[in-house]
């Protein structure tokens, strides 16, 4: 369970694979431990950037869970940057929830170490390897009454997926999907606004995927992003009409 180092030592991509971490919290905790950061006072800007860089190097497209964490970190980073009154006692540290989750997760990891130790010790003891066939005996009588059966029916009904509350949550959009969506739109229209790329209720992962796809397409020279005024709408336009047609 010792994870390889993930912090960048130089500009090269990190040599680490996604499946070596059991989730985004594991990766985040590894980053924090490695740099001996005080968990109660995380330099969120630095850690958020490292996290995004790490999952970038790890292959974002398969990792909705990681994307969600990246989005969460970036949001906290922004919240920390917002100005606040000096003596505001109601101010809540935007990092508090993250710290709580990290501590909770760290505690689980400590339990995991204990469990793994016990399992190893138990694996050093073998039970009897050969067992006789179970005796030919009629199975014990079953108890069953109407009350039990009625309750089971209620459970069936309660557990039945309701057509109305069908899975409205679609699979989170990955970067590949976002790239496709943007290319399609660019092929049809020369210019559109950024928010048109999000569905009705975009998840954090959707937003991040779209942003990353936009940045990547801009880098490739396929589109241009412009914001005419601060906090105004963000426009996306074809970089070269010929190319996109």
């Amino acid at each position, binding site marked *: 369970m010792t994870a390889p180092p993930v912090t960048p030592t130089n500009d090269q991509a990190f040599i680490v694979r996604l499946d070596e971490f059991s989730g985004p919290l594991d990766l985040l905790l590894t980053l924090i431990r490695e740099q001996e950061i005080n968990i109660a006072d995380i330099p969120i800007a630095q850690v958020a950037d490292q996290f995004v860089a790490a999952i970038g190097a790890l292959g974002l497209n398969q990792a909705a869970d990681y994307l969600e964490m990246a989005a969460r970190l970036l949001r906290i980073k922004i919240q920390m940057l917002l100005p606040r009154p000096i003596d505001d006692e109601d101010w809540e540290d935007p990092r508090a929830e993250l710290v709580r989750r990290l501590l909770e997760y760290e505690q689980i990891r400590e339990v995991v170490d204990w469990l793994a130790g016990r399992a190893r010790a138990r694996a050093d003891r073998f039970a009897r390897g050969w067992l006789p066939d179970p005796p030919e005996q009629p199975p014990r009588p079953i108890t*069953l009454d109407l009350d039990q059966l009625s309750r089971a*029916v209620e459970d069936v009904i309660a557990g039945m997926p309701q057509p109305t509350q069908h899975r409205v949550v679609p699979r989170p959009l990955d970067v590949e999907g976002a790239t496709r969506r943007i290319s399609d739109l660019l092929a049809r229209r020369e210019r559109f606004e950024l928010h048109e790329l999000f569905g009705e209720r975009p998840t954090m992962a959707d937003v991040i995927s779209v942003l990353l796809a936009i940045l990547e397409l801009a880098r490739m020279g396929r589109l241009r992003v412009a914001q005419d005024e601060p906090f105004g709408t963000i426009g996306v336009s074809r970089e070269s009409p010929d190319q996109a047609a």
Partner: protein
Amino acid sequence: MNRLTKLLEAALFAAPRPLSVTELLVLEPEAAPDEIRAALRELELHYDEGGHGVQLVELADGFQLLTRPELAEAIAEAHLVDRPRKLSAAALETLAIVAYRQPVGRGEIEEIRGVVADGVVRLLVDRSLIEVVGRSDTLGRPLLYGTTAAFLELLGLKSIDELPRLDELSVALTPLAPLGAFEEG
């Protein structure tokens, strides 16, 4: 017991089949086959003379520690090997669906419960609570299940019509909606 005897005892206990002298030699490659045989003899004597419930037996393909035959019956009668089973929530739910929708195929049960049901269906058939009552005319002609006489007996009912007809239940378990709608759920 010396270390070799102890090791042989543990290996014979843990192995899933009888072990020959050759196989036991792998445990202690430095030992001579005669030493293995001597240790086995010691083990055999130990179990025979101490009045144990277990004995070392030489079979065609090797040695094995076995319970004494005269105790077999007592142990079998105690049902110790078979963990007593009550019906699980999954089994109860499946039984409820069969009771209210019979004749019903496995596919339909799975659509309603949203989980694979073959293990549970097999268990209920084994326990004679449900049985095959026919085949559907639909593609693949799946088996259809219904409840058994034993099921009614267990509930103290004369016929299936005596099952409580709670309106809500019968409506919800009546094939109204195209069940395909549930597939993604």
